């Protein structure tokens, strides 16, 4: 595994894109075909199911190191990653086990067939035979997230530059449901399995926040304007009478939305549609907190289906009767899309409405009132634009409404994970509720590294607890919290839930006496 360990280490030690590319290319030159496939599988989220529970791994690690549970937890909260914590705690290895990445994966894939005793024998032998870096990787291979310093986009770029291929082709080729066992790396990245794979989605086209509004929109007639919805961006695929729904996170979510599947089934022909999955009741779009109740359920009861009906607003068409339309213009695709909606009785699927506006002044007014219909703002797509892969500046813009903001005080802090495990980066904020403070939001980002260090220092000096991962701090630091929406919630003590809360800025000029109170926060819900 040395070559793979070297790659992981190299990806880990730099944040320069070129050096990462170089490291991946180096790995491509040296590694075997199967190792490359595993690398691709692991870095694109296709890892095997966890065969050994984290509870067992923890128990065995404690048994070997003879440290008490509380000390293990202190170590864990200081490191922020279980596999790394265990690897650091274990004593130095006595021997070395030399296997390639794919050989290791074969062994790991055998684990589900072992009983607990055999699993333990195997894991303990490996722990005693690998140096720290490889032991850490082994623990990561056993399960858990495997996102080590390379984004999907970086991965695609590394492959496309190595083979001199178009990035969009590579993206397309490596999406979907291939397995290491049934694939060959070269063939896969060259897209040789694409046709045989009915479910394969296209990479989503994304928009940047708008810049230079007046200049960009100087000729409104060139733009297709739609509402921007806050749901789940999804791609509906119908090929050979089979239907698939993909989320933007490249997850198949077909089973979660039977309403959409049932309606699409009635449509003739093959197609790929891009749209937004939303909770819709009596023709009105509900806010995201409603949709959330529908997500990630194992069983969809009749009750929940009635309570939160789901539908889709369709934005675009990417494929029509097996013809890729992505290089056609937006206006062409829109016409094609509209033709699908002619003479159809539709309940769950709707065509995204075009917003008509004569002037920028009028458009701004429409945008400002978007929140009233639970929209996030506007989407502007150039009528000549093709359907790009990922984010590309110029053709598509999002023009979101300004976020809502409140002032809240920091009451709990927790260390982050990964890169942020050495600092307190995860914060919980409160607003006033009469004489008390009540938790209103958790937020993880929005501060600079320097500010995070400053907050961490404050936490170290003002923490009530000395043990455990969460520190209660003196309510003193005030932050302005921005969020996209707000809804009623029975899950939160405050009775409200914020959508996408984040720290807008540190209000060093304000004291805890000046934070918002819960009543005024509730008034933001319409």
């Amino acid at each position: 595994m040395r070559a793979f360990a070297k790659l992981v280490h190299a990806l880990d030690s730099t944040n320069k894109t070129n050096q990462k590319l170089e490291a991946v290319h180096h790995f491509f030159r040296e590694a075997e075909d199967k190792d490359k496939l595993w690398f691709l599988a692991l870095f694109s989220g296709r890892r095997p199911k966890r065969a050994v529970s984290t509870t067992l791994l923890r128990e065995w690690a404690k048994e070997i190191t003879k440290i008490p549970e509380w000390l293990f937890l202190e170590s864990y909260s200081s490191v922020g990653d279980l596999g790394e914590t265990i690897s650091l705690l274990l004593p130095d290895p006595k021997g070395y086990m030399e296997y390639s990445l794919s050989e290791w994966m074969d062994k790991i894939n055998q684990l589900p067939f072992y009983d607990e005793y055999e699993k333990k024998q195997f894991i303990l032998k490996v722990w005693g035979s690998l140096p720290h870096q490889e032991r850490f990787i082994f623990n990561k291979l056993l399960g858990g997230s495997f996102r080590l310093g390379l984004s999907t986009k970086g991965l695609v770029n590394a492959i496309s530059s190595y083979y001199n291929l178009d990035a969009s082709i590579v993206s397309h080729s490596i999406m979907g449901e291939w397995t290491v066992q049934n694939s060959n790396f070269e063939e896969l990245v060259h897209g040789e399995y694409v046709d045989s794979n009915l479910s394969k989605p296209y990479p989503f086209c994304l928009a940047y926040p708008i810049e230079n509004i007046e200049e960009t929109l100087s000729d409104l007639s060139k733009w297709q304007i739609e509402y921007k919805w806050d749901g789940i961006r999804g791609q509906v695929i119908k090929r050979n009478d089979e239907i698939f729904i993909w989320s933007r996170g490249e997850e198949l979510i077909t089973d979660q939305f039977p309403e959409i599947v049932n309606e699409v089934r009635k449509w003739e022909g093959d197609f790929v549609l891009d749209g937004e999955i939303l909770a819709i009741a009596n023709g009105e779009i509900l806010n995201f907190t409603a949709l959330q109740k529908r997500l990630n359920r194992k069983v969809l009861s009749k009750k929940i289906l009635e309570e939160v009906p789901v539908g889709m607003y369709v934005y675009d068409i990417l494929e029509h009767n097996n013809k890729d339309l992505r290089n056609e213009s937006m206006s062409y695709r829109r016409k094609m899309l509209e033709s699908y909606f002619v003479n159809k009785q539709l309940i769950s699927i709707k065509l995204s409405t075009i917003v008509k506006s004569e002037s920028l002044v009028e458009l701004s007014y429409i945008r400002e009132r978007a929140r009233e219909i639970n929209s996030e703002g506007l989407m502007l797509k150039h009528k000549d634009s093709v359907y790009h892969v990922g984010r590309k500046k110029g053709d598509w813009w999002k023009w979101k409404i300004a976020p809502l903001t409140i002032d809240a005080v920091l009451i709990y802090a927790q260390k982050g994970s990964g890169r942020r495990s050495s600092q307190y980066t995860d914060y919980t904020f409160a607003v006033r509720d009469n004489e008390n403070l009540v938790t209103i939001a958790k937020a993880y980002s929005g501060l600079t590294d320097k500010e995070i260090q400053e907050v961490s220092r404050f936490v170290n000096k003002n923490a009530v607890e000395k043990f455990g991962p969460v520190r209660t701090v003196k309510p003193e630091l005030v932050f302005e919290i921005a969020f996209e929406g707000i809804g009623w919630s029975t899950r939160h003590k405050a009775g409200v839930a914020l959508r996408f809360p984040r720290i807008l800025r540190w209000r060093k000029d304000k004291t805890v006496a000046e934070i918002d109170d819960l009543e005024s926060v509730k008034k933001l819900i319409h």
Partner: protein
Amino acid sequence: MRLIQFRPEGIYCVPGKFFIDPWLPVDIALITHGHADHARWGMKKYLCHHFTVPILRSRISPDIQVQGISYDENIKVNDVQVSFHPAGHIIGSAQIRLEYKGRIVVISGDYKLQNDGLSTPFDPVKCHEYVSESTFGLPIYQWKSVERQNEELANWVVHNQSYHKTSVFVGYSLGKAQRIMKAVEDTGPLYVHYSIHKLNQAYESVGIKLPKYEVLDFREDVKHVNQGIVIVPPALVDSNAIRKIPNMAYAICSGWMTVRGARRWRSADAGFAISDHADWNDLLTAIKLSEAEKVYVTHGQTAVFSKYLNEIGIASEEVKTEFGEEDDEIVSAKVEGNVV
């Protein structure tokens, strides 16, 4: 009568009427070692190991009143028998042993058990009460051998050279910088920042031979260091000065670099877990060797470490001090003052 007390000014020896590493101005200060959080400004009289004398003069002022003492030499201060014993942390670093009416207390300052080849190696001292640091008092901190560490540094330099890069090391100017110099000796031309040079002189004045180097003046052009080795103090991280170095690959040498997250937080090209503090196992070893019946834990992972000591049957208590501010060798860069 208790032999020591923890006072607002620092650790106080009651019958001896003196302080050890105080953080506020006092009459008599016994100094364990020359790092800024232990050797502070404003004492009427300083007592420290001979090797620490030039460091104090260089860092605080040439005019301070300071007396040097050898390791294992006994002196009396107001009826208390005082002696200094090697702590292995940096040159001149000492565990200070106090004996009064048969009662023995050792204040260890900062220490490490690994022999770095520059400092006099740690020598365990038996006592009734032991005052210990706990900077790396978590079992995740386990150092590699010094040979292995040095090898890794030298290999990194050679690796950079093959890519035509300049190796830049970030390390504390007193102790760490000199260890790095030793580790990369003979792998390429060596340049050090002025603040390191100043402390190198203190090393050389007590007869310690360091590798040949040139002083780097960041106010001038620094292109000539290309593909060589540069050592700078932590205060220079993210500074404009360091950006002038051509084709730079930079590494941070600090015990905190054990954890991936800490390495990535600093976004260095490399992080080496090299420390002048004892790791988890060595902290426990030192404490066991002292055979102390009571251990005071002064800085670092105080809560965790003293809880653990109590659990394994060694009575322990945490003490609030102003040592190891931020308990972070990298953040503490600012205590070095204006070094650019």
